[in-house]
């Protein structure tokens, strides 16, 4: 029974991280109509910045209780990267065919992957001190890291906050208006360029947050972004590209299937995920909640 509880918690932990990545990917697609192949790399940058900051903070003798502050700082840093990337690289491509938009983000992926290697080297970067400082939780006879529960909390909080911003604020109205009809929104006097930067920055922030919260329990390694991207793809394909609700449900489905897969059918665990995505695309091309 307690094993089951741990597995459920593991799935929720995993779902929180996946939701953060996939929601950002989905938001960027919803508003800007760009499938950002470099999104996984932004997630990885968040992880690297997080791990690097933790290392620096420990080196400077910052008390361990303050280490959690690293998480929002790393996410903000990735958002800044996004603010630089959008006008510089993506803006020239909005009027061009989809193929070029996909390719420019692929080029960006290659660049970012190597920049990470250039800055942080090829060895994994860890930040497990953060995890060690957190108390453990006892579930029956088993011990569960408290940090993972914090991550689940952050995931839930991020989801609620995102909902409030998009469906409850004026900014959210602007986002949704731009997403529905870019030209109409521009004709009504909306600064579409600014909305695009904001949407991209929020997407990057969430990817960076995902990376920063995952790094204390896993390590930052090269290639983690490329791997995360395909899983985020599965999530948004299942849930529906451009749908927030879809990203949430998709992340939950993928996480629970994956946890079950690792337990019961480890050989085909990944294949099953991709097959689910393919089946959903055939049956409902727009995903479970998509409208695009």
């Amino acid at each position: 029974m307690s094993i089951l509880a741990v597995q459920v918690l593991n799935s929720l932990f995993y779902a929180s991280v996946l939701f953060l990545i996939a929601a950002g990917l989905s938001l960027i697609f919803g508003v800007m109509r760009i499938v950002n192949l470099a999104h996984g790399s932004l997630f990885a940058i968040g992880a690297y910045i997080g791990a690097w900051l933790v290392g620096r903070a420990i080196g400077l003798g910052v008390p361990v209780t303050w280490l959690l502050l690293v998480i929002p700082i790393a996410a903000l840093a990735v958002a800044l990267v996004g603010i630089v990337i959008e006008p510089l690289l993506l803006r020239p491509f909005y009027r061009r065919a989809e193929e070029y938009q996909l390719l420019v983000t692929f080029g960006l992926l290659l660049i970012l992957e190597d920049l990470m290697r250039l800055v942080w080297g090829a060895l994994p970067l860890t930040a497990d001190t953060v995890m060690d400082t957190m108390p453990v939780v006892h579930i029956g006879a088993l011990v569960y890291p408290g940090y993972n529960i914090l991550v689940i909390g952050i995931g839930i909080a991020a989801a609620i906050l995102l909902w409030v911003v998009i469906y409850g604020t004026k900014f959210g109205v602007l986002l949704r208006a731009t997403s529905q009809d870019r030209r109409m929104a521009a004709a009504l006097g909306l600064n579409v360029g600014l909305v695009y930067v904001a949407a991209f920055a929020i997407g990057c922030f969430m990817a960076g947050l995902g990376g920063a919260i995952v790094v204390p329990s896993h390590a930052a390694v090269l290639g983690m972004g490329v791997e995360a991207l395909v899983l985020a793809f599965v999530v948004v394909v299942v849930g529906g590209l451009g749908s927030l609700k879809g990203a949430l449900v998709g992340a939950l489905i993928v996480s629970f299937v994956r946890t079950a897969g690792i337990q019961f059918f480890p050989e085909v665990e990944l294949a099953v995920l991709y097959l689910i995505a393919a089946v959903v695309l055939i049956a409902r091309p727009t995903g479970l909640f998509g409208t695009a």
Partner: protein
Amino acid sequence: MKAAVIALPRSPARLWPYVGGAVGLVVLAAIPEFLGLYQTQLLTYGLIMAIAALGFNLLLGYTGLLSFGHSAYFGLGAYTVAFLLQWLGIHSMELYILLGLPVAAIVSALFGFICVRHTRIFFGILTLALSQVLYSLALKFFWVTGGTDGLRVPRPTLLLGIIDFAGSGGFPRFIRSYYYYVLGVFVLSAAIMWVIVHSPFGKALQAIRDNETRARFLGLRVRRFRWAAFLLSGTFTALAGILWVPLNGLTTPDVLYWPFSGEIVFMTLLGGFRNFFGPIVGGIVFTFLKTYAVASTEYWQLLLGTVLVVLILLLPTGVVGALSQLAKRLRTTREGAR
């Protein structure tokens, strides 16, 4: 109609692709005399990639579908060869091709049947997802596929066992012979592809690319045409994988991983996808570009990524497209001066 497809066109302006192709062929046939062994090997890789890109471009350039999962068919070809060796002990290159192509055609037909239900971005994601199914299977079923270690494929015999490469000095002999072998297969595939895209079938694909609705009104069964194009495209790319694996000596899941699909897209774009010869030039140029980037810097991805971004910003029609535009501009200025 059928004869007209193959017969040379009478208008002299239409003749230049044939002339250019013939000149290119002569150059390719003569060039190993002037190149070292290593350069010849690289050029062989380039020709193989050119076949893959030609196949890929039937979908992108002629049908208007961007696949982000062509690593699947390349890897399928490579792994089929490895399995033929492992399970049936086959060592003949001809048998690899003859047995590998039907396998590739069947899988391409199956994947294509699913993928052509969509277009645009969903087509791209679907092809990517299916290719990753193969990737994860190759990775996880390590007792069959060797996992990340991959499977070794030693040098096969060529021309039904007439030429083999056992004994000392096998490697240089293999490289020299294999270059001409690949060149022969390449010329044959390029010729077949040329006939395909200039046939009524190819014209129908281009009509679908340019305006799907009109094509449908003309009575074309759009989905079926796309499916056929997908099947041909996947099979061509698989042929490249079949030729690639004996040269590489090893197949690993890397050739199934989706960034490799990105490389196929990259090389096609580098050459130019609006031109028949673009992918050929792109495949060869990309191979040399990547090899030298890898050799000269640890951060070759950074270099390639920058090249890609600059390329699509400045030369959206690729190398061949830019050259032909330049030629056209020179011609018009010369005529204007006259």
